[in-house]
């Protein structure tokens, strides 16, 4: 136990910090920003699975986020379902559509796959904006209920109408996503993902069915981003087609790349740091996005492994200098 604690003390500290954070931060606005960061971290982690670990640049991530969000919105608001039934159904729906679309789309490679998914994202956006009866068109859906309370025998009810409870709800799902991603990427299956990312032809030559590998990664990735979208719809209370826009995909992409692609911590760090940074850069207003464009180019050119790569390099240098001394 002590040995385990010694090896993993850092993660324990982070977890404890995450658990006490809402007790420290009482400002409603910042609390909201942080909850959203955790939520987007789920999306970023899932994008990282297909983009980083499997090497397929899916640009429909915002679209699948929207499928989850509209799923929960329609099921709970329009049809009056319980949130806890609507959420898994929406996430599964996102995964299922990912499967159906992945069948043709994943036959393409590299830039072709990126464009195909970008087109798919545009189709989802157009449908969300024009299918009045189902999605409410460009006005979207307003008045989506917060997650329904859970009754625990003997303890009473868990309600999700306060900010703190919503924070813990999102944190729970983030940890769940992280756990699945950890088990998946560290497993033998995860190795086939990485092999596909590094060299598709070689992977195929050693007997990996790269199509099935990519499809599995794509479906799991879309399941989790659909989950994030569903929670988003319920916590924000209203959605419009803008959740399906390319800008949403770009946000996820930025979190993954700036945080550190193909690492588990990177996307979470990215999803956490960038919105906070944006808060501090509010005074820049419209120039904000221009700055981010430059940042994206500089990072991809000079620090392609993002913040985590930078951290690794630094810690290695420190180790070396210690050995030298």
């Amino acid at each position, binding site marked *: 136990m002590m040995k385990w604690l010694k090896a993993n003390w850092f993660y324990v500290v982070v977890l404890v910090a995450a658990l006490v954070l809402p007790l420290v931060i009482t400002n409603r606005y910042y609390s909201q920003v942080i909850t959203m960061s955790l939520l987007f971290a789920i999306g970023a982690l899932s994008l990282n699975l297909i*983009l980083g670990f499997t*090497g397929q*640049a899916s640009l429909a991530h915002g679209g699948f986020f929207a499928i989850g969000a509209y799923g929960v919105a329609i099921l709970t608001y329009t049809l009056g379902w319980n949130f806890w039934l609507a959420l898994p159904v929406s996430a599964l729906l996102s995964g299922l559509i990912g499967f159906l*679309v992945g*069948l*043709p*789309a994943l*036959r*393409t*490679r*590299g*830039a*072709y796959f*990126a*464009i*195909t998914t*970008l*087109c*798919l994202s*545009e*189709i989802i956006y*157009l*449908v969300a904006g*024009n299918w009045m009866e189902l999605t409410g068109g460009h006005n979207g859906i307003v008045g989506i209920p917060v997650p329904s309370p859970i009754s625990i025998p003997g303890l009473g009810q868990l309600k999700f109408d306060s900010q703190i409870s919503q924070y813990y709800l999102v944190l729970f799902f983030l940890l769940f996503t992280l756990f699945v991603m950890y088990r998946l990427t560290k497993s033998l299956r995860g190795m086939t993902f990485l092999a596909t990312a590094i*060299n*598709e*032809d070689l992977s195929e030559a050693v007997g990996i069915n790269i199509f099935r590998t990519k499809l599995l990664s794509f479906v799991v990735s879309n399941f989790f981003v659909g989950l994030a979208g569903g929670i988003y719809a319920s916590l924000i209370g209203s959605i419009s087609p803008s959740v399906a826009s*390319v800008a949403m995909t*770009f946000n996820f*992409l930025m979190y993954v*790349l700036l945080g550190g692609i193909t690492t588990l911590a990177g996307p979470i760090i990215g999803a956490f740091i960038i919105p906070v940074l944006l808060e501090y850069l509010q005074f820049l207003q*419209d*120039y904000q*996005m*221009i700055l*981010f*464009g*430059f*940042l*994206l*180019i500089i990072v*991809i*050119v000079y620090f*392609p492994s993002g913040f985590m790569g930078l951290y690794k390099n630094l810690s290695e240098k420190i180790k070396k200098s210690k050995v030298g001394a």
Partner: protein
Amino acid sequence: MEAEYQVASFGDGVFMELFLQQVFNGIMLGSTYAIVALGLTMVYGILHVPNFAHGHMYMLGAYVCFFLMTIFGFAYWPALAASAIVLAVAGIILEVLVFKPVRNAGGITPFIAALGALIILENAVVVLWGPEGHRIPNPYPGIIDVFGITMSTQRLLVIGGAFLMILLLQLFIKKTTLGSTIEAVAQNKEGATLVGINVNFVSALTFAISTALAAVAACMVAPIFMISPSMGSLVGMKAFVIVILGGMGSIPGAIVGGIILGLIEAIGGGYFSAAYKDVFGFGALVLILAIKPTGLFGKEIKGR
């Protein structure tokens, strides 16, 4: 671009006319798509870089034209020519600052860099000139009636101009020494370097031609449609669809693909639903790729 289609609904007599009208609109749209896609496919052929920012260069071309005409009082044609030159320079800057540093990186790196560039371009235009749409005054508002089809002069001009540009480009590549260096680099970069072709120069030249073409296309259709900072992303995406339909790096493929997409949109938009017209085009792409993953005329691409 806004939809400007009439929905066919009445009578047998007008049926054929309406159909021809949609075909005409489709060819007009398709020929502009074709020149935008041409630039994209050339750049891909040389650098193997999917230039995601291409649609935004098109948008920038329309804005340069608009401001030259409204603020500096340029006439239409000089504004069009000046816009092409400005965009050629902008294309070289884009190549040197964004694509050259990642030329040997491979994988998803180049198009992430391109995404950065398009975010900068779109937001810079929003900051400088506002998010609202503008309209370039139509230099040829006249209408010609041919066999019952109404053709506005500007639309005819777009088709004629597009085919002229395609012809000139073909002549340049096939008949001049400078042009054939582009083809040489596309075929074999190492070989071209060996015989003394400056690959850096050819890359810059290709980018300049590609973005200048986009600017010409933008200036020609700008009097018909509104211009806005977001106009680029959709056109850029369509150009990509065309390039994939026609096969990356294939010039005839881009022309045929452009016309096909224009027709799909005009007929789908005219007969089924104007709101979903883009869905038809993008849906066609997904369908074609499902059957043939490398595009209609595409060659097998190996590895990554």
